[in-house]
């Protein structure tokens, strides 16, 4: 047993640090650290920088233009980019649709779509959730009927993250309404500019626009946009969900948030002393820090397992549950750290370009909104309750 990184891994970490020092725009890092809203241009800019360095597709094989990195390297990359304040790479193209295309797509689909993900031509969004389905993924109703060389798509998707920026959406659609729930589903790639598609914002509880409803009204989709076989989309859907995702525990983000918490709390006063010296608050911080040490080690154990060939299965559900709860707790402490200044809600202050005068400490403005926003962590990607049921069945055999 050896808890240390190898010299090669340490060298790799230095390489990533050098890259971040050189290439991560300081104003972008400041926005991320300050909890400001990122614009479409911000995301695209960072995406292009990573792509130019060959660091965008961290879990793709080299053959497709990925890094070919080991799980440990990916972990180090996640940790360093988060610590430096880099924006998180949006998963929809790189980590969700791409692996499905690599496994189930035609050569033509791979040749066309994968390079467009790397060079930023396409911004993908996800068309899984529906109003009546949610975590019951196979309960979807959106219909696709074959009509010659096209599918005619009708229905509605929801919770479509950043769909307002996307030009492509991957969708689960029902192609055989008579078949059993999971058997009549197909996986379709749809161009968002096709006539009949309407995107409507859903404003979330923090006042932000992150998610959307997407409506399909007789949308014509060429049959060559089908991935895999008709009515056999469920394996694609599941592969996407269970496909090995690094960083599901969010260790890098949690570490960065903990650092931010210590620095914010260190500037707040209680009885004239920094809040970090208040025994109660210091203990709360210490407890999440210890939980994070444990979770990081658990994560590394799973990674080491993956490295030596074992496939991370339901363990990733445990990481997701623990990681999301931990990150929620850190945002809870961040909100508490500014006391009554968690109350003012000045939405423009969450954008970087604003002339509005802050109320209270400038860094306080996004904290309560961030806390409310992070409630999503235990809901999306299969709620924590769904994850627990997966663990109960797959690991515990209940």
């Amino acid at each position, binding site marked *: *047993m*050896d*808890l*240390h*990184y*190898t010299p090669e*891994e340490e060298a790799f970490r230095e390489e990533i640090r050098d890259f971040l020092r050189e290439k991560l725009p300081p104003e972008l890092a400041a926005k991320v*650290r*300050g909890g400001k809203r990122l614009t479409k241009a911000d995301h695209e800019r960072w995406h292009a920088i990573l792509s130019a360095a060959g660091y965008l597709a961290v879990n793709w094989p080299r053959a497709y233009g990925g890094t070919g990195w080991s799980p*440990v390297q990916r972990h180090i990359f996640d940790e360093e980019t988060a610590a430096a304040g880099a924006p998180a790479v949006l998963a929809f193209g790189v980590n969700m649709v791409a692996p499905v295309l690599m496994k189930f797509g035609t050569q033509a689909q791979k040749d066309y779509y994968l390079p467009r993900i790397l060079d930023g031509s396409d911004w993908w969004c996800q068309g899984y959730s529906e109003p009546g389905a949610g975590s019951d993924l196979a309960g979807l109703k959106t219909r696709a009927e074959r009509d010659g060389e096209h599918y005619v798509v009708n229905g509605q998707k929801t919770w479509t993250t950043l769909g307002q920026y996307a030009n492509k959406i991957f969708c689960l659609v029902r192609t055989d309404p008579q078949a059993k729930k999971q058997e009549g589903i197909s996986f379709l790639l749809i161009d968002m500019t096709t006539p009949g598609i309407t995107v409507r914002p859903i404003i979330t509880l923090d006042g932000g626009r992150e998610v959307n409803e997407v409506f399909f009204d007789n949308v014509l989709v060429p049959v060559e946009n089908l991935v895999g076989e008709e009515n056999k989309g469920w394996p694609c859907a599941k592969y996407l969900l269970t496909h090995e995702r690094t960083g599901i525990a969010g260790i890098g983000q949690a570490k960065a948030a903990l*650092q*931010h918490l*210590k*620095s914010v709390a*260190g*500037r707040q006063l209680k009885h004239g002393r920094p809040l970090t*010296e208040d*025994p109660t608050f*210091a*203990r709360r*911080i*210490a*407890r999440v*820090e*210890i*939980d994070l*040490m*444990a*979770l990081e*080690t*658990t994560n*590394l*154990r799973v990674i*080491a*397992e993956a490295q*030596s060939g074992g496939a991370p299965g339901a363990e990733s559900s*445990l990481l997701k*549950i*623990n990681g999301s709860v931990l990150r929620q707790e850190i945002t809870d402490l961040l909100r508490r750290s500014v006391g009554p200044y968690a109350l003012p809600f000045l939405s423009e202050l969450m954008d970087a370009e604003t002339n509005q005068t802050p109320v209270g400490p400038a*860094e306080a403005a996004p904290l309560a909104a961030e806390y409310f926003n992070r409630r999503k962590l235990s809901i999306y990607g299969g709620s924590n*309750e769904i994850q*627990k*049921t997966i*663990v*109960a069945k797959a*690991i*515990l*055999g*209940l």
Partner: protein
Amino acid sequence: MRFTLSQEQALLRDTVARLVRERFGFEARLKTLESAAGFDRDVWREFAEIGLLGAPFGEEVGGFGGGGVELMTVMRELGRGLLLEPYLASVVLAGSLIERLGTPEQCSDYLRPMIAGEALLAFAHGEPDSRYALEQVATRAVATSGGWRLDGRKSVVLHGGEANTLVVSARTAGAQDDEKGIGLFLLPCDAMGLSLHPYPTIDGLRAAELELDGVVIPAEAALGEPGTAYSAIEAAVARGLVALCGEAVGAMETCCDMTLDYLKQRKQFGVTIGSFQVLQHRMVDLRGLLEQARSMAILAAGRLDGERAERERAVSAAKNLIGRAGRTIAEESIQLHGGIGMTWEYALPHFAKRLVMIDHLLGDEDHHLDRFVMLERAASAAPPLSAVN
């Protein structure tokens, strides 16, 4: 980074696991804990025969040079079987101190017989008012013409009543809470002026209260340079913490296994209770806690042989998390078992009791949380705030 055991470590684990399977039956345990010694001398002899009593010590004193990972591995297996034997008291705590501070003569007089299974040691450090603070020592050691005179009280000394030799801490100088001025002394259990009050503990082990009333010992009974023992005590306690964390993880594993089996077998309302989602999710929560506890035991074990700051941070973090996880797993295992979880004749509640009591040994979750805060503060020494944001 590697989380798998080496071949030698895996062999050690398998050996101990077999011993636990063969010799740690629950019926036998119930009988043993009622016996006079409170543990099984035959099992202890087997420990000695397979070299277990020398596991953490260097080869020059007759051990086989194991480190933190070996210690954690051994204790985890012993924890799965809920040992009654004085491994923590004799081998890990007192033995470590003699190895670290003892002269070659002391090692051969006290450590070797202990490793051979011929004598037992105990570490008498805690006092009625010291709670878990290692630097709180009120017992005095006053130099006399031929040696030392000890006066004071020691409390909840693990296996103090069974030991042949006690390693006793006493203050040679300084205020009651000074790290400097603490000495360690080797005291025979039949020393004049020493009274011992042994008793059983709620988790089935043995402990004793000690009164030292003008106990006179020769100069060569001092272990190390009198007055400078603090860092050795801290290091021995770190070893004890890794041992306890390993033991706790083993006990948690048994609790979780038994509870999961119960959920799969016990029927109510015509179905197994494990088919109820609310119970499934509670079981998953326990499994998540167990995984976190395992990680912390590994982390503490891996840092034990490193430098002090890293070691202390890791062991305090581990003991805090394992204290929390152990209590929850103990309470939930009892709850999920229902009434059967409340009965003396069933093994599960005995594991649960041990888990809760481990939190009372060498510092509970609150103590180690405070200590973690203190260590962090000392380590960070106020970095410039501008560097962070």
